């Protein structure tokens, strides 16, 4: 049956997932999605899937938030450039 720790993690995962959706600021959302990925990987680990847990940490908690952050930086730069052009 489901252990107490697994049950706790399920609750935490549901809360984290809800928080990802509720967060409106993309910058904060990337951190929230990173936390969500970390909780998910712990859950995978507790269900005896260490391989999947490692992939989840690598992709869900590191690579995905990183790509979001870099894309946000690129968007911000493009916006700044456009504004600078308009002011010229």
């Amino acid at each position, binding site marked *: *049956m489901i252990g107490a720790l697994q049950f706790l993690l399920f609750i935490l995962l549901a809360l984290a997932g809800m928080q990802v959706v509720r967060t409106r600021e993309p910058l904060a959302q990337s951190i929230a999605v990173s936390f969500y990925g970390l909780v998910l990987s712990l859950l995978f680990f507790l*269900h005896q899937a260490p*391989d999947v*847990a490692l992939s989840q940490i*690598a992709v869900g908690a*590191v690579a995905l938030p990183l790509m979001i952050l870099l894309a946000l930086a690129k968007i911000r730069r493009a916006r700044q*450039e456009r504004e600078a052009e308009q002011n010229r």
Partner: protein
Amino acid sequence: MRLRLVLFAAGALGLGAAYFAAARGLPPVGGYSGAYGEVLNAVSVGERHATDVVSAVNFDYRGLDTLGEEFILFASVLGVATILRKQQGDEEDRDEPAWQARQAPDSDAVRVLGVWLVPLTVSFGLYMISHGAVSPGGGFQGGVVLATAPLVIYLCATAKTFLRIAPPWLTKAAEAIGAGGYVVIGCLGVLAGKQFLENVLPLGTPGAAWSSGTILFLNLTVGIAVAAGFVELLAIFIEEVLRRET
């Protein structure tokens, strides 16, 4: 407003009831009714000398699928590089002298943390890639871990240091070698008169790092390709975006 709440409550109650009715019919946690999992658990250590059955499936029994996955990553990196390269050409002539290199952080604490983190991530990544057949992990996971080392260096130093440690020619060559190496190892089977990606190398002792034949080398090529692909992506973004920020 009130009507919306009533509608939501009715919908939520209905969904909840249906959900719990469905969840009651699920098999217990850990329940498994297929045949392949049991078969692979029973035969893979004996047949392939790989103590990590997941790796044996990914890199041997279903090695062709992993080849496809590797080329998905290859194609994505290629796509990002192509899209962002075009924009660079558009803007290059105009504001070239306007941007300057990002300064290294002043904090000693950040640099000390980096000095600790870099050897840790490098050795852990290499361990994970090379022990994919023995313990959880493998080329994909280890490659991503390995790719975070240059990122830490970038965070602790400047973009110039990042580009010196991972110059574009090196990452491009490593990614090509990693992706192509998988196919070359697959062709070993054909050369030996057997099937593509068949495990034709000596299998070694189960549990030893040097074991399970081609699985070890396929992990190495995937690790190189994934690490290089991620560093390539980082380098593209860092070159295009972050270095121009003052």
